C-alpha cells in the first residue's frame, strides 16, 4: 500500500502567506458530457453519442493504464452530491480554494483530443464556454485556459482569436504529447496567435497524444512506469521548440509546463548545450545555447514535486533552473495532489515562498494589472 510521509512536525514549512497563493493546475470536470450540450451543435452531440471521441487507445472510455484510484482522484475528493471529483463548484471551493487560501486558481480542463479535428475544435469551443459559464463567472478566483484543436492550427487560431480579449482566460492550453514534435512549423500559427494575444501557451502532461509509444522501446506495462515516463514528452517538446528555432521566430512567446515536474531540466539543458556546441550546423535556426532560450521563455509548475533522498538537494535544482521560473500547483482533485502546506520537502525563505506560491505566476499571467 501507499506510504504516507508525515511532514506535519516540520512547522517552518507550513507558513501560508497572508495574501493567498496562486494554484496553477486545477482540473474541473463534468458530471456528464451533457453539460456541454448548450454549446455543442446537434451534429457533434449526435456524433459523440454514436462514435465517441475516438482517442488513440484500445478502449472506448477506459484508460490503457488503470490508474491509482477511481477517476485518478483523491479518495476524499468525491463531492457529496454524487458527481465525479472536480465537478462541483461549492465542494471545490470548500476543499481546495478556501481550505488553502488560494487567491487565484488556473483551470486546466483535460478534454482528450478527438482524432477528427473538426469535432475537436467544436468540442474545445464548448469546453471553453463551459469554463466561463460554470466556473469562471461563478467564482472570481478562477481563471480559464483556452483549449484548442492544436492538431489543426487554423482552427486553433480561430479559437484563440475568439478568446484573446477576454481576461477570464489567462493562457492557451495544449497537451504535452502532440502528433509531431511541437517545434515543427505546422504548429507555428499557434505560437503566432498566442504571442499576438500575449497569452502564454501552457502544456499539460497527457498519456496518449499522437499515439506514439511513450518510450523509444515501446509501451510500458504498469501505471507506475506510465505515470513517470509521460513527463518525457516535456523533454521532447522543449528540445524540439528550441532546436527548431521557435523562440527565435517568436521572441515574446512564453510557455508553461504543467505537471511534468522540473528536476530533470538541468541535465537536459546541459546536454542540449553540449550537443548544440558540437553540431550547431545541423540546427541553424537555434542561434544561441539552448539553455538560454529555455531560461527566458519557459516556466514550470511544481506538482508532482520531485522528492530528493536528501531534501536540500532540491535547492541546487531550483537554483540551476531559476527561482523565478517555478510556480506552485496542486493538481486538484487528482490522487497525486500536492498540498501547499507540505508539498515542499525543503524549508523556503519567505521571499522564496512568495515567488513560487504567488509572485512568479502573478508576473507571468500579468495578474497585477487586473
Amino acid at each position, binding site marked *: 500500500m501507499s506510504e504516507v510521509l508525515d511532514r506535519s512536525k516540520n512547522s517552518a514549512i507550513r507558513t501560508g502567506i497572508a495574501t493567498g497563493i496562486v494554484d496553477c493546475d486545477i482540473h474541473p470536470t463534468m458530471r456528464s458530457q451533457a453539460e456541454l450540450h448548450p454549446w455543442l451543435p446537434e451534429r457533434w452531440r449526435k456524433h459523440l453519442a454514436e462514435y465517441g471521441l475516438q482517442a488513440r487507445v484500445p478502449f472506448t472510455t477506459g484508460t490503457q493504464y488503470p490508474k491509482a484510484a477511481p477517476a485518478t482522484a483523491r479518495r476524499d475528493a468525491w463531492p457529496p452530491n454524487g458527481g465525479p471529483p472536480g465537478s462541483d463548484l461549492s465542494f471545490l471551493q470548500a476543499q481546495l480554494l478556501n481550505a488553502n487560501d488560494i487567491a487565484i486558481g488556473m483551470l486546466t480542463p483535460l478534454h482528450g483530443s478527438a482524432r477528427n479535428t473538426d469535432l475537436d475544435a467544436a468540442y474545445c469551443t464548448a469546453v471553453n464556454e463551459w469554463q466561463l459559464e460554470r466556473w469562471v463567472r461563478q467564482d472570481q478566483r478562477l481563471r480559464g485556459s483556452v483549449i484548442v484543436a492544436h492538431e489543426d492550427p487554423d482552427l486553433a487560431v480561430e479559437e484563440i482569436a475568439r478568446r484573446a480579449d477576454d481576461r477570464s482566460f489567462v493562457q492557451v492550453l495544449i497537451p504535452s504529447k502532440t502528433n509531431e514534435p511541437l517545434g515543427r512549423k505546422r504548429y507555428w500559427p499557434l505560437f503566432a496567435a498566442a504571442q499576438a494575444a500575449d497569452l502564454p501557451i501552457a502544456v499539460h502532461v497527457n498519456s496518449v497524444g499522437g499515439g506514439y509509444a511513450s518510450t*523509444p522501446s515501446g509501451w510500458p506495462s504498469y501505471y507506475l512506469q506510465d505515470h513517470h515516463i509521460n513527463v518525457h*514528452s516535456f523533454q521532447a517538446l522543449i528540445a524540439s521548440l528550441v532546436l527548431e528555432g521557435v523562440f527565435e521566430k517568436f521572441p515574446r512567446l512564453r510557455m508553461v509546463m504543467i505537471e511534468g515536474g522540473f528536476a530533470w531540466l538541468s541535465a537536459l539543458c546541459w546536454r542540449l548545450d553540449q550537443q548544440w556546441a558540437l553540431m550547431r550546423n545541423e540546427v541553424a535556426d537555434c542561434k544561441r545555447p539552448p539553455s538560454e532560450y529555455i531560461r527566458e521563455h519557459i516556466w514550470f509548475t511544481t506538482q508532482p514535486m520531485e522528492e530528493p533522498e536528501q531534501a536540500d*538537494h532540491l535547492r541546487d535544482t531550483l537554483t540551476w533552473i531559476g527561482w523565478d521560473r517555478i510556480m506552485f500547483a496542486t493538481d486538484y482533485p487528482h490522487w497525486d495532489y500536492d498540498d501547499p502546506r507540505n508539498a515542499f520537502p525543503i524549508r523556503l525563505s519567505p521571499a522564496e515562498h512568495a515567488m513560487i506560491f504567488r509572485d512568479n505566476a502573478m508576473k507571468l499571467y500579468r495578474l497585477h494589472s487586473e
Partner: protein
Amino acid sequence: MTAPFGAIDCDLHVAVPGMRSLLPYMSQAWQEMITSRGTDGLELASYPPGAPLSCRPDWRPTAGKPGTDLAMLQRQALDALGTRAAITHCLHGGQAVHSEDLARTLCQAVNDWLVVEWLDREPRLRASIVVPMQSPTYAAEEIERCAADKRFVQVQLLAAGEMLLGRRYYWPIYEAALKHDLPIGIHAGSAFRHAPTSNGWPSHFVQDYVGQTMGFEAQLLSLMGEGVFNHFPGLRVVLIESGVTWLPAFLWRAIKSWRGLRSETPWFARSPAELARQHVRLTMQPFDAPGAAEVKRLLEHIDGDHMLLFASDFPHWHYDGIQALPPGLPPDLVHKMSVDNPMATYPRLQETLS
C-alpha cells in the same frame, strides 16, 4: 581531468568497415545470400559516421570509417590515455535488422570478427558480446557460444529496441548472462522500432542523441518494475554512453511514484535508488555537466561513487586532448572509477588481468 595511468576504459568503439569484412565469418549459404542481395550499409543511424559526435576531428581517419583502424586506436586511445585494458563496443545493425535469422548470422559474424581482428591482435582489448536481441533464444545461444572466451566480458544490448528490456520475454538473455558472470551492457542507440520520442520523430540528429537519456530512464524503470532484479539478484546492468547527470532527478521522481504506486507491482519492494545502487553502473562519457561546481553537487546527489566507470568513448567527441574525465572529481574517486569499479563490475577482468 585526465585518467590515471593504468585505467580501465569501459567504453571504446570499434566498427565493422563493411559487410565484406564479415563474410569470412559466415556459412557459404549466408555469404551467397548476402552477396546476391547486396546486403550492406548496416551502420546504425544513431551514429552517422560523418556526424561530429561520431568521431573527434583529430581522431578521424583520412579514409574509411572511424574506429576501423587498430593502429589508430592503439595510438590515439590506448597509448595516449595510458589504458591498461579497454572494453570495446561494436555498434552494428545486426541488432536492428527485422529478420531473427539474419540478426543471428550478423551478430555471430561480428563476434568472431572481433576475436580475430581485435582481441587476438591487441592484448589490452576486451569485448562485449553483440547479441541478436530480436530473439532472446538466439541471444542466449550466442552468449553460450562466446562465453568460453574470457576476453568477452559483457553482453551488449541496444538501448532502444522492440520492447522494454524488463519484459519477461527478454529474461533468457539475463539468465545466460548471469550464468557466465557477464554484466548486461546497455549501449545508447536505437533499432528505430518506435519513434525516438513520445511526440514522434524529431527533425534533427541532435535531438535524437540528447533524448537517449529518456530511453535509458525507461529501461531502468522497466527492469525495476517488471522484477528483473528480484528474479536475478546477481544481475548487473551497465548503462553505456547514457549520460550521467539525469540519474538523480530520475531517481527522485521514481521514488515518489514508487511510494504511491508500488501496490501494482508488489515484488518491487525496494526503492528505485537502492536497486540502482546495487545493480546499475554508468560509464562516465558523456557526463553532461557544465563545470566543476555542478559536478561536485551532482556527485553528492548521485551518492554512489561505486556506480561510476571510467570511459573514453573513443572515438566519439565529448572532450579534447586527453581530458577524458569531467572536471572537479576528487582524486580518490578518479582512482576508484578508473580501476576498482571496473574490476568489481566485470568479474572476467579480474580473471584475465590479475
